[in-house]
């Protein structure tokens, strides 16, 4: 390797291993996985290699955090190799270890490892339900690829290295959303899943376009994209050219909107649920989608300099938070509710970092990673339980029911009463729900409260919007609990649902524990605020607003009221099979909007997708082919030339012109009869004459 170490504590030279380990894991599974899979222990081996790779990265991250703590949070660099050096452009493969990056590393590899373990059990069943066992290995290769890319994202020392991870996780996301690329979510042959994958990648590319422009502007205005060098100059540039700061923040926001699913680019995330559930949990809830929050936090010195930028970001986040929550209320698919909930919670985080409440945003990022991963994985357990129940029921009815009847194991209208058949999953789900709904003392309460508190002090409009969103959050989660776990089963699959094995529920228990105690990472009391003080080593000193009983009390009361409402509508008289949603009647058209995601997908299709396709088609068929290729070149030029040649040849009939034009027109219309000529050894003689020509030239030179 091209080593140029600039490392203080030798521990920090381990930093690149957070990437090397998952890369080694995926290479091992690519090279030896096929051989593993020939044995009965193959799946376990493949899963173990991948999980161990992720766990090793976690151990390294923990070592880095400890070493960092030992030197009071002062950032360290591990430069591995130069990447692109042209003139004044200096991009290196350099890993940055500071309190912010290690926090992200720990969350990513920690939650990531738990999800790897869960996936060993989950994918074992999933590949069997979908009749393609060979794809088991591929899943873990992609999962390791994701961890590697995400680690590059959170540990890169420059915006460009961050961008490598940024697009890398996009690729992993594409591959995993489209994991079952030849079917839809119900396992029928279809383009649906691959469409979802493509949609995610392309929407994210729109965001990446913004990111790229921001990075290029940084280079030309700050002379670098390294974090330290950029931040060293922001004050100066902001003084002379404030518009530069504003544009950079806006371009970055486009990137954030893509990756962290904010308005107007959030549309890909609900579709991303086409991926297997561990993917939804890891990538599309806990880690990758929070990259935008990380990016804004990382760029704190830039955002702090522009109040306009802060206002825009905070508003986008808050509006997304409420907007997505309204859609979540109208969904019937278990994972779709959680998807819109994720968009909404990302809105909370983006609003927080937009307001400058970076600690609150990162705190919520962390707790959300715990409880949303828990909820998604529990949802996966529910879906597997339903599949098992469906399988079981089909067997009792003669064994081939599952191939003919279209059954959606993720549709909440098929569920009901699952608390009896899946008690472990039920309790885990309850813990996740309470944490998300913001009921004290669960983790989500503390982090959400900090965001609301900050908003109430500085951005009142954000406070009101987010409070409304928090109310809806508790409501749709309550709705989900009643519909899924209470009442009577509305489908025989639900009646025969079976609890998941320990390999699936054990990682869930770890996440549940974190969802309960996660709030203690940043206790809002004098002398605590551990996460805050830890992060301030990187983002600088920030004010810590004192805990407010009013804000906490109001949001808790609202959450309880919302859960009570949900009980009134869905708990008191459980939904019957085929009965429409009880909200449909009182809300009328409003509910139709919620149910149909406010028709945003349709609007985008009409406004952008179809238009671009039409434009491309018009350019390709009409302009490029019919006009330019066929008419202009073939008719005007070619025929015109032949015509001119004939005109000159026939009436004027000069011997010389006659011969030349015949030669040329013969050449032009050679397509008719030239073939035969070419096939009679003419070519050989031509080749020979070319060779002779070359020899003649050489000969002339030689004899001269």
């Amino acid at each position, binding site marked *: 390797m091209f080593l140029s170490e600039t490392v203080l504590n030798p521990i920090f030279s381990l930093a690149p291993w957070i990437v090397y380990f998952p890369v080694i894991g995926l290479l091992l599974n690519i090279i030896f996985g096929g051989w593993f899979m020939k044995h009965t222990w193959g799946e376990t081996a493949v899963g173990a290699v991948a999980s161990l790779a992720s766990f090793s990265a976690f151990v390294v991250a923990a070592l880095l955090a400890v070493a960092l703590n030992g030197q009071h949070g002062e950032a360290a660099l591990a430069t591995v190799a130069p990447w*692109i050096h042209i003139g004044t452009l200096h991009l290196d493969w350099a890993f940055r270890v500071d309190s912010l990056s290690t926090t992200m590393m720990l969350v990513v590899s920690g939650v990531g490892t738990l999800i790897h373990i869960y996936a060993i059990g989950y994918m074992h069943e999933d590949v069997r339900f979908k009749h393609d066992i060979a794809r088991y290995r591929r899943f873990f290769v992609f999962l390791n690829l994701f961890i590697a890319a995400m680690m590059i994202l959170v540990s890169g020392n420059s915006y460009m290295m961050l961008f490598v991870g940024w697009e890398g996780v996009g690729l992993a996301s594409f591959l995993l959303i489209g994991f079952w690329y030849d079917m839809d979510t119900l396992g029928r042959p279809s383009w649906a899943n691959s469409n979802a994958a*493509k949609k995610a990648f392309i929407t994210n590319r729109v965001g990446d376009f913004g990111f790229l422009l921001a990075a290029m502007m940084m280079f030309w205005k700050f002379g670098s994209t390294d974090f330290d060098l950029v931040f060293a100059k922001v004050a100066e540039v902001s003084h002379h050219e404030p518009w530069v700061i504003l544009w950079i923040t806006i371009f970055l926001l486009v990137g954030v909107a893509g990756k962290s699913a904010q308005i107007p680019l959030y549309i890909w995330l609900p579709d991303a649920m086409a991926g297997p559930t561990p993917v939804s949990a890891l990538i599309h809830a806990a880690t990758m989608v929070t990259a935008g929050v990380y990016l804004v936090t990382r760029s704190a010195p830039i955002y702090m300099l522009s109040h306009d930028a802060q206002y825009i970001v905070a508003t986008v986040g808050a509006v997304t938070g409420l907007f997505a929550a309204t859609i979540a209320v109208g969904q019937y698919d278990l994972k779709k509710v959680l998807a819109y909930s994720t968009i909404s919670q990302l809105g909370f985080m983006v609003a927080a970092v937009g307001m400058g409440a970076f600690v609150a945003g990162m705190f919520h990022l962390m707790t959300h990673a715990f409880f949303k991963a828990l909820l998604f994985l529990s949802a996966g357990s529910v879906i597997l339980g339903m599949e098992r129940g469906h399988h079981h029921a089909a067997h009792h009815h003669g064994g081939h029911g599952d191939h003919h009847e279209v059954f959606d194991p993720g549709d909440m209208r098929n569920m009901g009463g699952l608390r009896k058949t899946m008690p472990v999953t039920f309790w885990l789900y309850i813990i996740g729900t309470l944490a998300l709904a913001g009921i004290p003392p669960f983790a989500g309460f503390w982090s959400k409260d900090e965001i609301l508190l900050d908003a109430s002090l500085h951005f009142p409009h954000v406070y009101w919007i987010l409070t409304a969103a928090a109310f809806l959050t508790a409501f749709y989660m309550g709705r989900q609990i009643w519909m899924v776990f209470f009442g009577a089963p509305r489908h025989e699959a639900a009646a025969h649902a079976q609890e998941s094995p320990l390999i699936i529920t054990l990682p869930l228990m770890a996440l549940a524990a974190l969802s309960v105690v996660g709030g203690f990472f940043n206790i809002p009391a004098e002398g605590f605020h551990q996460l805050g003080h830890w992060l301030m080593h990187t983002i600088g000193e920030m004010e810590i607003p004192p805990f407010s009983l009013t804000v906490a009390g109001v949001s808790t009361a609202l959450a309880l009221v919302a859960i009570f409402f949900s009980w009134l509508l869905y708990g008191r008289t459980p939904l019957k099979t085929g009965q429409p949603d009880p909200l449909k009647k009182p809300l009328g058209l409003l509910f139709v909007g919620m149910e149909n995601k406010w028709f945003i997908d349709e609007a985008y299709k009409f406004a952008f997708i179809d238009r671009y396709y039409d434009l491309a088609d018009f350019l390709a068929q009409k302009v490029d082919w019919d006009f330019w290729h066929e008419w202009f070149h073939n008719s005007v030029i070619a025929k015109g030339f032949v015509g001119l040649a004939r005109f000159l040849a026939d009436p004027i009939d000069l011997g010389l012109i006659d011969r030349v034009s015949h030669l040329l027109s013969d050449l032009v219309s050679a397509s008719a009869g030239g073939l035969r000529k070419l096939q009679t050894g003419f070519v050989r003689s031509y080749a020979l004459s070319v060779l002779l020509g070359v020899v003649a030239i050489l000969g002339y030179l030689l004899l001269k």
Partner: protein
Amino acid sequence: MNFLFEPLSLVTFFPLLGVLALLFLNSEAKPAIRWTALVSSLLTFALSLWVFFFSGQYNPASGELQLVAKYDWIQVAGWNIRYYLAADGLSILLILLTTFLTPISILSTWTAVQERVKDFMLFFLLLEVGMLGVFVAQDLFLFYIFWEFTLVPMYFLIGIWGGPNRLYAAVKFFLYTMAGSILMLLAILWIGINGGTFSVPELIAQGNIPADIQMWLFVAFTAAFAIKVPMWPLHSWLPDAHVEAPTAGSVILAGVLLKMGTYGFLRFNLPLFPQAALQAAPVIGWLAVIGILYGAAVSYSQKDVKKLVAYSSVSHLGFVMLGMFAMNEQGITGAILQMVNHGLSTGALFLLIGMIYEQTHTREIKVYGGLWKITPVFGSLMLIASLSSMGLPGLNGFVGEFTILLGAFGSAAYGSYWFAILSAIGVILAAIYILYMFQKMFLGPAGEITHHHELKDLNWREIVTLLPLLVLMFWIGLFPQPFFDLMAPAVQNLLTVLK
């Protein structure tokens, strides 16, 4: 006789030994013919590596022309035409790309070309001589001879071994490029007669072409090069030639022949006519931007996968032009690297398409579908080539595109952010057409062809053909610095001339 034993002469004309050997072989001895062609092209590659890296005669840290072979040739009536070969950082990568892609292309014809194998290989090796000559010639007259010479073998490669409409495509390719070259020939004669020499370094050193005449000469050279690149809107010959050419022809066409155009701009237009180039930069820049967006949009709407890749070349080469006429270090360096990148990624795409075409005999996108499941190795390699082509960071395409965009963004010659901003939209559009292609062919449920054919996954020969390209994609994507170091001094020199 000495001139032949100059290092660059040896590299350039080495394939002729293969030609000579082939002439002694029986036309029916196909394996022997193939091996002879492959071995001679591999030896040429080895020789080129040796000359540049192991002979001790080429110093990569120097920006000057090196390995100079300079001999008087035609010295009549005041004409001062020389046999003048040399290489520097602007050409070294293209020379290596040529010697690298030729054996790969030959390997790809192993089973695909069954008719008149001997003629095919003759032309292929002659083509290599012509291409190498273009990249090493430092005398305008000599350059022109090599430039025109490449048309002949390519004409026959398309015209004999091409698809159903091959003669139309071959004739169009020939006439179209020929038409552009005529203007260049006139300009070359004017320069050579007025300047008293055809040697490019001497002409650059003189540097006394008046500004108003510079523009005329610039336009004349541009006519030849812009058609070759091809720059929008002169790309009409490209889809025909690409679609009709046999796989190996498409690989060389996209990989090397198009680069002769961009290289021409770099080697002649910029240093010979610096004032005109500076003046023309915004015009060329806008044509490049249009090409990037237009090529990407038109690609998206293609039904034929080879045509899709052909139009994507219009977009990719637009990036090369954009970087070059940004006229700063990042832009020009990125442009040179992107020439190589395009050769690798588009070359790989054409090879892969050829491999499936050999089995199915159709290039219609919609009859495929679900290929990844049936041919996993093929699908995975296609994915990597596609990602390289759409500029995913970590692979080669991104390094080139990013440096080009960065150069354009801060370019004084352009003087506006819009060139870079609009071109960056091309990055989104590239994802759209590439993913469309990948999805419709490799994802989704099994299509007509996938369903009814007993499709075989790649065999070892095919994997070996592709592997070098893939290795380079990762190498350039992750550690491009050795490549940049090769060109940096020469780019510095060029920038001094431009100032």
